[in-house]
């Protein structure tokens, strides 16, 4: 196929091959012997919108299902089911795996997204990936509460019944909660919480509902009782009122991911959720790390002046933030001193989890952690997979990984 460059220039490319595209990642992994390190990617993606014909039959309601399937049949993959996002993730085709994705060949047998996933995981030396959707990260913008419930239910069934079982145990997930309907959130935990490969649940943060609302306490309690985790996955939304004045995607992307996590993390901390659910691991995903020191400083400062507004807190907001977990990508590395300070402030050795975000445009390799000059060997092993292995009970895949997990105290109970 042709990639269109400027002024109509066309570059012919035969097809995408993920293994070939990421051959340098494999080379760098070999140099560092990363196969000896258990590596867990706590945030990877697939394009579920390309499989809606397989997902939609799992919608429980006959009428909603017929509406959705008719729409998809007419409009193609995804149809108009999930709110769309204005954006240019592929940078005008510069990130070539976007326009070429459809050209990649997969074989018979395993589900296509499993095959593609294993290719990038093998290239990066990743042992396990937490698989999240792409388009459905914007499900919180859906105007119909019942459709959010139907679509997340269908996706979670398809994921847990078709995709995860096909992945040789290398994919797991934290399932999307239909947050507009608190009762449906609880039903989701009750129905799916025990399924194989489910390590917890995830709230997409591109939404305005307060995560501290009393209506959600039964869901959080159900998650905590089951020994599962809760994640908040950020996103981008150019339609957000405060972002309408931004004229470039770089601006919306840079601010958006941080903005939504800042918003919801503030509610989570100020309303004492850490006191209410102290045993539930909580994770903040895909907003990078630079926002965390900012929010710690900001909330601690205000707390010292206005603690009467947060009576549930028994320590500073930053202390609660240090109890939570953060995914690393996209890790801001331009000021290494600031990054080192960030690692100190979040207790990275125990609270930071590496993530790739592959195949999205700003993915990170494991080398972003491995090559850091100021991080101890123990911290590198923890961040790349040891901490996640403990949290999600993921076993080593070879003897050297087993020895390394034992060496740094990360063998799952």
């Amino acid at each position: 196929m042709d990639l269109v460059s400027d002024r109509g220039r066309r570059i012919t490319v035969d097809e995408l091959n993920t293994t070939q595209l990421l051959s340098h990642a494999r080379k760098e992994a070999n140099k560092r012997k990363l196969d000896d390190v258990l590596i867990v990617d706590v945030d990877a993606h697939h394009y579920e919108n390309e499989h809606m014909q397989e997902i939609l039959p799992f919608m429980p309601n006959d009428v909603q299902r017929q509406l959705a399937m008719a729409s998809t049949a007419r409009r193609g993959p995804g149809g108009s089911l999930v709110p769309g996002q204005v954006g240019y993730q592929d940078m005008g085709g510069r990130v070539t795996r976007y326009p070429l994705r459809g050209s990649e060949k997969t074989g018979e047998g395993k589900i296509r997204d499993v095959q593609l996933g294993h290719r990038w995981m093998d290239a990066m030396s990743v042992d396990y990936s937490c698989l999240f959707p792409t388009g459905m990260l914007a499900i919180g913008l859906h105007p119909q509460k019942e459709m959010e419930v139907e679509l997340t239910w269908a996706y979670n069934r398809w994921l847990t019944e078709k995709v995860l079982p096909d992945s040789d145990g290398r994919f797991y997930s934290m399932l999307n909660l239909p947050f507009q309907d608190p009762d449906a959130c609880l039903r989701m935990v009750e129905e799916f919480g025990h399924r194989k490969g489910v390590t917890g649940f995830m709230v997409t943060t591109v939404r305005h509902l307060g995560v501290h609302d009393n209506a959600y306490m039964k869901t959080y309690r159900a998650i905590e009782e089951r020994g599962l985790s809760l994640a908040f996955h950020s996103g981008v939304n150019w339609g957000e009122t405060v972002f309408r004045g931004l004229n470039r995607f770089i601006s919306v992307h840079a601010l958006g991911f941080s903005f939504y996590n800042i918003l919801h993390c503030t509610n989570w901390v100020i309303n004492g959720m850490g006191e209410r659910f102290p045993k539930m691991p909580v994770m903040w995903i895909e907003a990078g790390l630079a926002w965390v020191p900012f929010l710690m400083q900001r909330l601690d400062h205000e707390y010292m002046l206005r603690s009467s507004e947060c009576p549930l807190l028994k320590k500073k907001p930053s202390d609660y933030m240090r109890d939570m977990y953060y995914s690393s990508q996209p890790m801001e590395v331009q000021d290494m001193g600031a990054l080192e300070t960030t690692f100190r402030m979040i207790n990275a050795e125990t609270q930071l989890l590496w993530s790739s975000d592959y195949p999205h445009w700003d993915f990170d390799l494991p080398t972003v952690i491995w090559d850091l000059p100021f991080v101890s060997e123990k911290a590198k092993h923890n961040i790349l997979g040891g901490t996640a292995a403990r949290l999600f009970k993921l076993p080593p895949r070879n003897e050297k990984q087993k020895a390394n997990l034992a060496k740094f105290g990360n063998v799952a109970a």
Partner: protein
Amino acid sequence: MKEQFVGKAAEFKDGDRRIVFAGEVEIGLFKDNGQFYAYSNTCLHQFGPACEGLIIAKVDEPLNADKTSRGMQFSETELHFVCPWHGYEYDLRTGECVADRRMRLRKYDVVQKGDELYVLA
């Protein structure tokens, strides 16, 4: 420095590119306006195949005398190549990373002997 054979010069049209392997080293060779340029194929960002992505003109945003923007347009003179992994963009004539020109890809000399092209690696 070892001469690594690339191919016949006549095989290259303007705008062509080829990846050359010299042992473990990967080199991207470009032809633009009759000139050959050769750079390391390892992106300075995260080791991506820097020379294997889109070749595209620099994006400019000229200003009017009153400082108002005339919008974005493609440059008529400066050509870039883009790492396909994340979009790190390099000046085709210098190998400089255009977002921070203090950073540049390693450049290799290209030698033509008769009709045969070599890179010195």
